[in-house]
């Protein structure tokens, strides 16, 4: 990739995650679910890469693979120039200091039976970084960082609101001073008035701490707001990857176009005049992806060749990649 991309922190090459089902009574295996099917991209230092797509497109599985919570079937994951695809044991543990996560549901991400201070301090304890008084001090500092009073460390999760819990989850993710955070739908479960607080916090920490984010979301408005570059996934593949403004102003892939046009603008004048592309049909099942371009069954401009040949992800314009036979 060209100069538009900052220095790589996380790199994926041909990453695939296939899930094989159990044998049935005849001893036959069902076809594997190709959740992630040959994904190549990078996340730069201090960059936010937004990863968007609809349910079942493989975006969360991709995030889990980066965290090494699921095993990649093929391909390579690099972190800071080093191949981390098959790390295990002590080395994997060390990687986790640098790569942390924030999940969607702050209600299930915190253990309801332990005090929030312990939850936040646990990574520090587990990695042998701090204990005793030093641990308490660091927990207080982390709570302050996310805008919560330090004395609330001795409370339990149920005593906090949804937005406050997401702040606690962020504090825990920041405890080890990571360099990359995989954020999987971090604001989707939150009310709109709380969402902006959390987004502001994430942007602020990127500036202050030099973090990189892999920001997974189905919400294009949120992704546009926070990302520097955006990748669009469909049925396990990246179909478009571009700097934010290029992607939103001149989308090249018909799926990206349809996704953008499907989001209602909160402005009745503009919204009711907009030309909208309403896709027909539903997402195909990832167990039986259609041959050729995975999008051809719903694509408004599909041609016969799209049914036969998988379009490669090509750099159509500098820094702007798309997988479509028909767009250049």
């Amino acid at each position: 990739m060209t100069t538009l991309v900052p220095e790589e922190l996380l790199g994926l090459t041909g990453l695939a995650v296939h899930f094989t089902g159990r044998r049935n009574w005849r001893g036959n295996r069902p076809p594997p679910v190709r959740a992630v099917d040959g994904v190549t991209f990078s996340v730069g230092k201090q960059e936010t890469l937004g990863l968007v797509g609809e349910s079942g497109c493989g975006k969360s599985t991709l995030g889990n693979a980066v965290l090494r919570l699921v095993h990649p079937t093929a391909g390579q994951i690099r972190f800071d120039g080093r191949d981390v695809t098959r790390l295990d044991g002590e080395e994997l543990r060390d990687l986790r200091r640098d790569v942390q996560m924030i999940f969607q549901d702050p209600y299930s991400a915190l253990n309801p039976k332990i005090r929030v201070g312990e939850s936040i301090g646990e990574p520090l304890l587990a990695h042998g970084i701090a204990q005793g008084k030093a641990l308490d001090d660091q927990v207080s500092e982390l709570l302050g960082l996310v805008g919560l009073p330090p004395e609330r460390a001795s409370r339990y999760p149920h005593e906090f609101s949804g937005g406050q819990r997401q702040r606690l989850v962020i504090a825990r993710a920041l405890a080890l001073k990571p360099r990359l955070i995989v954020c999987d739908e971090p604001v989707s479960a939150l009310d709109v008035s709380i969402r902006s607080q959390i987004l502001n916090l994430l942007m602020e920490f990127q500036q202050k701490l030099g973090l990189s984010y892999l920001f997974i979301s189905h919400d294009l408005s949120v992704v546009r707001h926070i990302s520097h570059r955006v990748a669009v996934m469909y049925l396990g593949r990246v179909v478009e990857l571009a700097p934010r403004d290029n992607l939103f102003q001149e989308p090249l892939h018909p799926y990206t176009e349809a996704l953008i046009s499907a989001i209602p603008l909160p402005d009745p004048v503009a919204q009711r005049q907009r030309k909208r592309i309403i896709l027909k049909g539903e997402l195909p099942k990832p167990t039986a992806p259609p041959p050729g371009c995975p999008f051809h069954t719903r694509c408004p401009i599909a041609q016969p060749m799209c049914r036969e040949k998988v379009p490669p992800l090509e750099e159509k314009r500098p820094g702007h990649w798309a997988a479509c036979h028909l767009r250049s």
Partner: protein
Amino acid sequence: MTTEAPLLTVENLTVMIGGAAVVDHVSFAVGRSQVVAIVGESGCGKSMTAFALMDLLPTAARRTGGAIELDGMPLHGLDEAGMRKLRGKEMSIIFQEPVAALDPLMTVGDQLVEAIRAHQDLDKAQALYRARALLETVGITDAGLRLKQYPFELSGGMCQRVMIAGALGSEPRLLIADEPTTALDVTIQAQILELIKQRRAEIGASVILITHDMGVVADMADRVLVMYAGRIVEEADAFDLFGRPRHPYTEALLRSVPRLDDQPGTRLPVIEGAVPRPGSHVGGCRFASRCPLVIDQCRAEEPGLLPVDGGRRRSACWRHEEVGA
């Protein structure tokens, strides 16, 4: 809308859970063929309002007051048998979780047949024929196959189409849609909203659309009610509301959401604090603790929902003149 009597009028509707009013003296009207959106965040009482209209409140909740009239007929005094005659015929509801709202142990066909035969004197074969026609009106291909399938065999979008087919089958005069697309993907959301618009136009039904998504409101609504902590804080025509809000909460809701046409990467305006818990209200305006325009009067005295802008709209704010200026 101005000359004709409204289809639905609601006066001082109040719903209590335990000792707390989750819907607190809510009054509004829905005109004929009008789409009225109720917006607000979780816990503001928008779904409870809808359930109260259908008399489908959860067991912990109780309607303790208020008058509801559908086309001049009072609903608040009706018993369960009376409501049953109306539900699914004069007024229908579709829910947020389409897969959960259907009976998992019945085929799609059996559910539709049951709903059809509850109000129409048809035999099973006739009802099945009707069910098949209904599925076609909501854009389901292979209707014959779908009738024999169970909800788990269909996608969320498909289940929502089945719900809409059932809800609109009797051509009700009022459709209540409770977050009908929140659980669906955006490309499917676009399909379902289009379908609701089209079917609504065909049968001329009024719609109460409950949502937290201002984009969906802008797309669908004629009139908008904004709810906060159990109360309507603003009511206006959709174009007026988005053009210039007259309540600080509406303004904050509109501004704090990232949108496809804003300046990316900038700090988003924030509503500080959190929604007060139901029952914790002690007096004054419920939004006072989070409001940028708060003055002493707001803490002392709760503002009523009063006409502003020459009666075109209503706002419950002492300083409505200054909002959005």
